[in-house]
């Protein structure tokens, strides 16, 4: 959590024009706030994660071996 008005160097570096702004690994950006049900999938999709862990397990258990 960064109170950006106190850190103008970060505001400039990450081009913070509006808040909240979420930056993942210094490069992936998500602008604005959202309810958890939208926010978490949005953040995860930035990391290339779209499938919940439980579904992955289910896929494995119902895969070609079963």
């Amino acid at each position, binding site marked *: 959590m960064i109170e950006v008005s106190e850190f103008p160097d970060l505001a400039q570096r*990450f081009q913070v024009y509006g808040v909240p702004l979420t*930056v993942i690994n210094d490069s992936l950006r998500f602008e604005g706030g959202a309810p958890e049900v939208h926010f978490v*999938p949005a953040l995860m999709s930035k990391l290339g994660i779209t499938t919940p862990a439980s579904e992955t397990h289910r896929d494995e258990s119902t895969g070609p071996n079963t």
Partner: protein
Amino acid sequence: MPLLKERDRQTLQQEFSQMPHRVRIVFFTQALDCETCGITEQILAEIEPLSDKLELVKLNYAIDRQAAEHYGIARIPAFAIVQLRENTNAEGESELVEHDYGIRFYGVPSGHEFMSLIGAIMDVSTGDSQLSPASRALAAQVTEPTHIQVFTTPT
């Protein structure tokens, strides 16, 4: 003059009475060249006495360099919120061990961010994100260390 009103203190005391684990706030500050360090310290110092499970450790950013590196602090004012758990060491003695969930605050935790601070203390104390099972199932797929910065303003 205190920042917290008596009514706020009572509300927070009630909230903090639900804390299962102890929480340590490790605060990095310095006297010079830090416009907002003083107000940040005042906020944290007013919160600390509201629970016997809360402790505030004040470190000097310029002097306590090893600690600053340990917590990954590169600017101030900043604080880490960590959980303390009792552990029995090899000699059979009880000791407090820090559990660091990686939560850091930079700048004054005022306005909306004051509630974020209280929420973070409670989350760290319980060790529970309070996320839904669906969110947890997604987050469980993260295998690499991931740095998430949330930029806010005080309003």
